[in-house]
């Protein structure tokens, strides 16, 4: 088969679409669903900017076929803020701590870090650096990203304690 109709959840909403079987999940999100927040960099799994969450786990959307996401839940950067536009604590912290400059790597960074903070609510600096070792940033030198993540983790822990 060269084309297939797939049904999947994207950021909590069910979507049905016909896709070419050779289309990557990244291209399907961008071209098929116009969700261009997921960026595409190297297209061979090295740069990390296309990272999305598949059933909660961070994956490279350039290294998956769209048809493989059938029946799964995909979370993209478009679903990170709340429906009313209120930022996720990671987004607030990236703004406050200058965790981005050009912004190209940012969607992949944020999705990876969402997984990290779910699994590890109180990460060490080393754990943050380990988590984003698969996300390349050419602007920030990473320090501001690490600082932003540690701040977001603090905010999220405080909110949880409320």
């Amino acid at each position, binding site marked *: *088969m*060269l084309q*297939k109709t797939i049904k999947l959840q994207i950021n909590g909403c069910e979507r049905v679409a016909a896709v070419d*079987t*050779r289309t*990557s999940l990244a*291209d399907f999100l961008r071209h098929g669903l116009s969700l261009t927040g997921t960026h595409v960099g190297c*297209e*061979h*799994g090295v740069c*990390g900017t296309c*990272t999305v969450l*598949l059933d909660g*786990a*961070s*994956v*490279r959307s*350039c*290294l*998956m*076929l769209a*048809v*493989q996401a059938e029946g799964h839940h995909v979370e993209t950067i478009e679903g990170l803020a709340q429906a009313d536009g209120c930022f996720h604590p990671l987004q607030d912290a990236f703004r406050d701590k200058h965790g981005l400059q050009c912004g190209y790597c940012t969607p992949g960074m944020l999705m*990876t870090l969402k*997984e990290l903070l779910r699994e590890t609510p109180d990460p060490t600096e080393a754990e943050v650096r*380990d*988590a984003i*070792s*698969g996300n390349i940033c050419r602007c920030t030198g990473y320090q501001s990203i690490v600082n932003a993540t540690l701040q977001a983790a603090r905010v999220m822990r405080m909110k949880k304690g409320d």
Partner: protein
Amino acid sequence: MKAPLFEYHCPETLDEALVILAKTENVKVLAGGQSLMAMLNLRYIYPDALIDINRIPGLSGISTDGEMLRIGAMTRQRHIELDVEIERVAPILTEAMKQVGHRQTRNRGTIGGSLCHLDPASELPTVCLLYDATVDVAGQDARRRSVNFRDFVVSYMTPGIEPDELVVQVNLPHWAKQHGYAFVEYSRRYGDFAIASAGCLIERDEQGCIRRAAISIGGVGSVPQRLQVAEDGLLGSTGDPDDIARAVAHCDSLEILSDFHGSSDYRRSVIGSVLRRSLIQACRRASKKIAA
């Protein structure tokens, strides 16, 4: 940078997959896809068909019995990394797994896929060779066989299975409870392919002398390599710095290649350091109290 056209098959049973595999020419099996999808996107390969085995039940899972640690071929690398039972019985696998790619690729990549890809720089084949693992392979008409990992490694990126066979399980025989272990690798950036890697397992007797040793080297040659002569030399020694230096000197017998990551001379010097660090750590971790 987009995958070429291919026919996509997504069987829901192992038998169905094996039938398609047997009757289709120029076909590739899609496991975790963390190497295959990159090769497709870069158009290194042009398969006519892909068989996606991700929806076949029963191919993933981790279990142990008195003899073996058994891991289903489609078990994700990150499940292996985080599994507490594996950390208890085969901690070198946990240590090596943390050095496999990055969390995003480990979330998707599988042990069976990594072994069949058989990249000489990757960690899992090096660990399986270290363990004298066996690989359970399935063919059509309920054909099943078990392949010793030494025979599984045929040549550069070439696993010892037939074109109509699929790897279904990997089995690692246990080492004594208080064995020492270490997996050390060197790469230019954390998470990159290893320029050189060394896995070591050490068992001591009641007197503290080494009674069993295994050394497996990755990254330097066309395939992962055992360093049998160095293993034999360590037997009966205490693993002091002189013993380790003698073992490391046997790196001269390895096949060591050049590529754009480094010349063979450079790799020879790196593997010496990497093996020394690995042996020191494994000897340190090997307890003198051996469980009966």
